[in-house]
């Protein structure tokens, strides 16, 4: 097991994970970033979604060693000091979630999507989120949170 280095939430992290260890497990176990959740380990539910080099990826389908030398952002890294970023605030205001287990995956997926598609409409948002499964909400409140975040972002533009 050779040591690998990556930047996670802006900090340089090193570790020596086994080759077979997933990025999700590495983040949770080795780096104690338990915000990223594991829902299926086969890339369907999206609970493990993180951002690697600017793209949303399923960390359960990625090996930790594949993330060597990359910039990784997890849900813990979205806002400083445990505060709430604008998307998280909009989701709070929209009552987006219930049990919270799917939440980090949705937050990361929506973060990546909105940064590339700030003017997405409801249908586009639903399609972008269709790879994240929520069992509690029926999705409407989550979509509303993303729509609200996008709307506030547009209003904030000078």
């Amino acid at each position, binding site marked *: 097991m050779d040591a690998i280095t990556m930047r996670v939430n802006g900090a340089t992290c090193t570790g020596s994970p086994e080759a077979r260890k997933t990025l999700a497990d590495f983040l*949770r176990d080795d780096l104690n970033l338990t*915000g990223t959740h594991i829902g*299926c*380990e086969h890339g369907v539910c999206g609970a493990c979604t993180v951002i690697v080099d600017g793209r949303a990826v399923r960390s359960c389908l990625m090996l930790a060693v594949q993330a060597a030398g990359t910039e990784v952002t997890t*849900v813990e890294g979205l806002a400083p000091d445990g505060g709430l970023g604008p998307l998280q605030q909009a989701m709070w205001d929209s009552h987006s979630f219930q049990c919270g287990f799917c939440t980090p995956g949705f937050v990361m997926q929506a973060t990546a999507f909105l940064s590339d598609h700030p003017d997405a409409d409801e249908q586009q948002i639903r399609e972008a989120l269709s790879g994240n499964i929520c069992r509690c909400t029926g999705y409407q409140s989550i979509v509303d949170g993303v729509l609200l975040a996008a709307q506030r972002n547009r209003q904030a533009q000078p």
Partner: protein
Amino acid sequence: MAAIAAERYTGASIKRSEDPRILTGAGRYVDDIKLPGMLHAAFVRSPMAHARVLSVDVSAARELPGVVAAFTGADMEAMTVPGPDALMALMGWAGPMPEFTLLATDKVRFVGDPVAIVVAESRYLAEDGCELVEVDYEDLPPVVDAAFALDPASPPLFANLGDNIARPHARSEFGDVSATFAGADLVTDFHIDVHRHQNVPMEGRGCVASFDAGQGVMTIYAATQSVHVTKIAVAMRLGMEQDKVRAVAGDIGGSFGLKIGASREELAAAAASRHVGRPVKWVEDRGENLSASGQAREESFDVRAAVSNDGDLLGLDVKMVIDTGSYPGMGAMVPGIVEAMFPGPYKLAALGFESTAVTTNKACYVAYRGPWASETFVRERVLDLIAKDLGLDPFEIRLRNAAPRTDPPASMITGRPLVGVTTLEALERVAQLVDFPAFRRRQAEARAEGRYLGIGVATFIEAAPGPRTPEAGSGPMGNEFMRLQLTEDGIVVLFTGQMPHGQSHQTTLAQIAADEFGVPFEQVRVVVGDTDVVPFGLTGGSRSATMTGGVALHGARQLKAKVLDFAAHLMEVSPQDLLITDGNVWVRGDPATAIAVSEVARRAASGPFDGDVDAKLEVEAAFDGGEGGWSGGTHCAIVDVDVETGIVTVERYVAAEDCGALINPAVVEGQIRGGVAQGIGAVLLERSAYAEDGSFQSATFMDYLMPTACDVPRIEIEHLETVPLDADVNFRGVGEGGMIVAPPTVVNAIEDALSPFGVRIYEQHLPPARILELIAAADLGG
């Protein structure tokens, strides 16, 4: 009645206290727990549906570096105390009790049945160890359907039962069944099946068990709907005194009925932890969750309906068979609830009901959101089928048969009075929201273009908690308890046995207590999830809105009285002259006298006081549900069925609902939408699939399909004005209703869409292939 006055927090969509941690990844779920020296467990599981276990050899696993222990079923029996399923025992089950071991010893009974446990330094190594365990099986004929299970020739799953009957055949009659049927204009028979599907919370089952040998105390960190039930289950199986077991839970990633008590795997992990002397974590993966955690709803019904030519549903005679899978769960208890609820909110004059529960080589039948929901599915399907037979409109037939609200109230023929039901109001509101005639015109135009739209309606009631009954009181679904305390800092703390797993109790209960006591929302804290600290409680059966909302309201009132008595002593006035508003105690009419609640609390904590002054600002409250009441509603779906592909799109979904007074409308609406989504999933996507040999075919999300954001439409929710029954507590439960009524709503719409083909639907699972089969069979005149 003053009950539903405008109040500060109650009735408002207050933002959740839970969300700041949920949204930032700071929730604490059981897999987030790390203890020093913690080990990880994995299970060797049977690939056979039914087999004798001839030998289990864990020696190679034990040799693997990183593996600390491996135990067979026999090893596990030596470490634990045999006994019945804890939940069934708690619920007072008096029927057949299968004898079973935590890990399979002499036989395995379903694909996924745990056979051995391997404990290692990591989950990866534990699974490596599992691959080295050698098990010798001798195949036995699998019992994979109820028909074979009912056959005395089927090999019994449990030797002590001697057959595969989990609950023997029983029949009850309500009203004069034979006379009702003899006098009917029309008697029709239907056979209706509901398919096996399951809870699928996003977080599976799991625990961390930690035994302190020095103190002899087992701490179990659990994902559970009741820390107290988990504690009792662990104490029973490990042969420990209950005060030596502590169950703790943090955030829980959904459950929907799955996580109650302690599963065989959790008990095995706890026993392993005690034996090994180190904490042991077991968290199931999705394959285990789908194949082994338990499933629900596999029920079949032969229904005979007695009807008048004008569409009166006079009587029903129902034969139910429920497939309860292998190990004991909730299945054997479901028929009793189905029977009691079968009449629904209708004027049914007679009901004959008989049921049998069977055991089969499948995962056990667990509670799944509205476990008795088949009664609504079957009844609402039958109403549509009868309407078609008689040439009547399905909406009109419901208006005709719904029991009007009378004083004194009419009763369901099975006994419970229909106090305060708003069924007719719900039906009428749906008719206002959905222009049926306009839809029928659009439907006709679409048909001319080869597009098939359909509309479906279904109505339900749920005993959440149901009207007051004298005999309710004790047991896990009896009275609700709460301890309330005003701390030295002036915080009102509510200690409840409720175990929220998405229900937002830490917000809703604080809203109620803040209003009743008179402090800001931020000055109330709700404590859950520790058997050392909270009273007994269980989150389930949609009880918490009434039972816990009620005990919070009355408890806050009692605590306030105590605080005012003490404040009156401080302020040298009579307690009747004092108010608490916005966190201040003051003399009515004289705001200058205001003292902060926190100051009163500080003074109370800094005694001593004279003997007649009670400065202990704490109460223990109990609530029996008050007048209780029904929840219910009417749902309506408009669907578009593509007859080339079989794909069904839910174009519009409307819910008129009555769950009493709303504590937090956003929370209520979230519960309804989530339940409806599960109902849509059940009809269009989800099936727990077993092959004829008992092998399991839906162990991944590529096979067990879940509804996504593209499958669930915007759900329009109308809150009906409720009928207050109680002077104070008119909150009623809403957690299960959506899942109970959505399946028949959607199926009724699909049948309506396909009526040009003459399709009749007697089942609940309608994926594209099945839609095409139904159309083809109807085309052939089948």
